[in-house]
């Protein structure tokens, strides 16, 4: 039995010790926003926040999250209002097919929490672990810059 808080909601779950946090979120809790891209922790599609720090949930065990707080892409919007990072990704074209987007958005939120006004180099350094096939990344950089501007206003 593990106890964890996901997007502000407390859960008690019986999970096998080998269950990954990603599978727990997707299959036990029905939060299918986080995606499995590579399954080996290099593509970033499964990025979630564990106590505010970003991790690859495909290589973290669910039991590892016992007593801790998980934030997924589903937990970013407040009262039907998109998080500034989500809105910026929409407005600036930060996604196309969308499979990497939940991970990109969560990673970008973590970036702006850590560095509110990142330089382009800081954005690229931080977002290095989130692969994208469609956008060519230019508009992801622009989205994050836009979100940083929005936070400033």
């Amino acid at each position, binding site marked *: 039995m593990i106890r964890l808080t996901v997007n502000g909601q407390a859960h008690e779950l019986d999970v096998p010790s080998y269950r990954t946090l990603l599978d727990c979120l997707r299959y036990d809790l029905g939060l299918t926003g986080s995606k499995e*891209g*590579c*399954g*080996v*922790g*290099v*593509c970033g599609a499964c990025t979630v926040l564990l106590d505010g720090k970003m991790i690859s949930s495909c290589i973290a065990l669910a039991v590892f999250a016992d007593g801790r707080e998980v934030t997924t892409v589903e937990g970013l919007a407040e009262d039907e209002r998109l998080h500034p990072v989500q809105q910026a990704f929409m407005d*600036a*074209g930060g996604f*196309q097919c969308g499979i990497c987007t939940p991970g990109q958005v969560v990673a970008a939120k973590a970036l702006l929490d850590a560095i509110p006004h990142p330089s382009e180099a800081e*954005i*690229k*350094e931080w*977002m*290095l672990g*989130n*692969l*994208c*096939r*469609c*956008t*060519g*990344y*230019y*508009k*992801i*950089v622009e989205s994050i810059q836009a979100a940083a501007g929005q936070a400033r206003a």
Partner: protein
Amino acid sequence: MHFYDAKSHAAVTSFTAQVAEVAVDPATGQVTVLRFTTAHDVGTIINPLGHQGQIEGGLIQGLGFALMEELQTAEGRISTLSLGDFKLPTIRDIPPLTTVIVEDAVGPGPFRAKAIGEGSISPVAPAIANAVADACGVRIVDLPITAEKVYFALQDRKGRS
């Protein structure tokens, strides 16, 4: 008079010209793309954001194709089995980009649009290969243009001269 028959295929209707500016490290053969320019002959742009996204996305796929992506095999089996083994461009691999749009509203598509999705992929590798040849005098004819291939081509040329 229109140049395009509305029933013809989009494949012949969209033209692209690209310029790659590269640096080659003679000690390692590593190719760095310093700047990239992509120019497109396009029809009516229906969705400017999506249009530019298609250009940029295709371009970076082309960049991966040119410089790093390779489906490797060992004894007949594919050995690049995950994104951990298969190298593709990351956010740090994108060069400063200039896009030139030559809008010409005579495409065969809806609202006289033309195809854009694939136009930016194909010329990237030839542009980079030409730039590498111009920079260091060796012409790599199989992709990807890895540091290893450029290094050995440079050694080979040195050995012959």
